[in-house]
């Protein structure tokens, strides 16, 4: 912890060595964050780069009050959202009240690697991807998401529902068959 403080203050005074250390510490995890928000790894790399530039530029304003990882992660999410806002004008709101419920067992999910799951998330339409990430992973509620993304709460909800459905269908299509024989019944039992 002391080390991290030292690294942070080194970065604040513009020391290259400290910047590199900080990058080594956080880049893999933050790349994971960026990958979830981006449509592909190139966009994620861009966002990671842009995010770290922002981190180094603003690290002097970090007051050691909250979690540093939370702070840096917030910057990455913000960069991703900013990119989304620039790239995507608002899509017309779809009515998603009637989506057929897909049953996906936990066990199917358990059999999928994080990488595969991220690949599926990246395939989601941009706004669904954003809402899904903010709600499921960052733990924001719909009110917060609606403010963050300048959409209505209803849109946020429907986007999330739609994202879930698409993901479930995709997961089922791609991985469900393999797991069917061994885990399908177990899944039913569980639920």
């Amino acid at each position: 912890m002391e080390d991290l403080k030292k690294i942070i203050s080194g970065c604040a005074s513009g020391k290259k060595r400290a910047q590199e250390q900080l990058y080594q510490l956080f880049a893999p995890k933050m790349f994971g964050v960026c990958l979830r928000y981006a449509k592909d790894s190139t966009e994620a790399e861009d966002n990671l780069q842009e995010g770290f530039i922002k981190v180094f530029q603003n690290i002097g304003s970090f007051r050691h009050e909250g979690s540093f990882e939370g702070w840096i992660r917030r910057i990455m999410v913000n960069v991703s959202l900013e990119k989304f806002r620039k790239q995507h004008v608002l899509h017309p709101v779809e009515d998603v009240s009637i989506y057929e419920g897909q049953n996906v067992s936990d066990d199917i999910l358990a059999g999928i690697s994080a990488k595969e799951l991220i690949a599926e998330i990246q395939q989601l339409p941009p706004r669904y991807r954003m809402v899904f990430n903010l709600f499921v992973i960052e733990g924001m509620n719909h009110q917060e998401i609606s403010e963050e993304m300048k959409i209505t709460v209803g849109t946020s909800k429907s986007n999330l529902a739609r994202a879930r459905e698409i993901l479930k269908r995709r997961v089922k299509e791609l991985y469900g068959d393999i797991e069917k024989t061994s885990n399908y019944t177990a899944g039913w039992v569980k639920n």
Partner: protein
Amino acid sequence: MGKKLNIDDSIREKLDGFSAAPPLHVWDGIQSQLDGQRKKRRMAYVGWISAAAVVLLAFIAGWYFSGKSVVEEPVMVQQQTTPESNQEPAVSPQDKNIEIAVDQLAGTQEINSNEENNYETIADNKILAEVELPAQQNKSESRQVIAARPEENYSFLHRIEAIFTTNQSNVSLAKKRNETKIQESFTADKMLIAANLQNLNEQKQQEHGWIVGAQISPGYSSHSASHNESYARNMTYESDNGGSNIGGGISVQYKTGKRLRVESGIYYAKDGQKADNSFNLFASRNDMLYEAAPNASYDASTPGFSNVVQTGSGGSGISMNSTAGVIEMESTPRGANIAAKLESSKDATADVLYADGEFSQVFEFVEVPLYIRYSVLDKKVGIELLGGINAGFVIGNNAYLDNNYGVQNIGSTADISTLNFSGTLGIGLNYALGKHFAVALEPRLNYYLNSINSNPDVDYRPYRIGIYTGVYYEF
């Protein structure tokens, strides 16, 4: 609903701690971007410091000159430069304006020529860059490629010109050169070849080479002086601590690298001091009442001159202590009177010389410099720092009295060393006019490191602030 949340949780668990090693080029991109920002900041500092230094120097020079123009009466025939000194404070700020305006103009020219000549090639390069990086992994790299190209492209026309002109055996090509021809040959291959050739040419041209220059320098000269007590007791009083004059010369520079140059040359400079020892300032009024000769135009309100002198010392003439040394006169100057100083019984040869008017001493130097120049900014507008030493040869040493009879050469100052050394510091601002010519404005301070008077009683070191204005030609 419960099931949905369950899935959310599973997904969160899976993804929350997920990490993946980003490719190495991301860090490289971050570093180069941060370095770029650092460099920009540093350049901004250098720019501001240089600008501040120039403004400060110009201000100091202007302050000296303006102060001088109030005090000085145009009394010396030799000093024909009084009008220049009056113009000086007005000239330097104007020059600065011109510099700035020209700078801006240069900037827009660069941009224009970029757009006109290279729009298509930039686009080409972009495509090339993207093809080279099919995974689109390196947006930052491709951006750098795009950013780097316009600089190369900008000077393309110049490069073509340079290749043709340096290639002197190919005179016919140089004659054929025209805009349309060059436009036609705008293919990527030719450009690359031209760029490579030009890089070679430029390296040769920039790394080593000769530059000659000619400068003229309106300047302000003064001195620092100290004397031992017995000498100072009988010394003239300075009326004016400095004077304006004009100098100049030619210089030769040799480039030893991209930024460093060694310079020598030959310069002419003038330095002097004046003395109008008025009744009120130095010799007491009572002294004069006792000692005034019948014809003396004694009037406390009229500036006049009186000082103790030695007559017949060393078998010749009259000698008088001045700031720069002992002035030796062969005979009593016209319009001046010598009175016996009756009180100083200790010294039989002590007399008082008095006259209306002003004494002055003028020294002329030929200086051979050895300077190092360091180029801080080497663009269309360049900034250089220079410093070094000069060997200063005294080629003129005269003393004058200016009174009702005009300016008389009354003798010279004794014990002046022929060879002296001075140090110089300066800042050069130059503006390139084409490939070979540049105009320059260089405020310089030149300070004598040794006393130019070898008399142990006198320590007299002239200094000079000059605004060296001139042209340079680079081979």
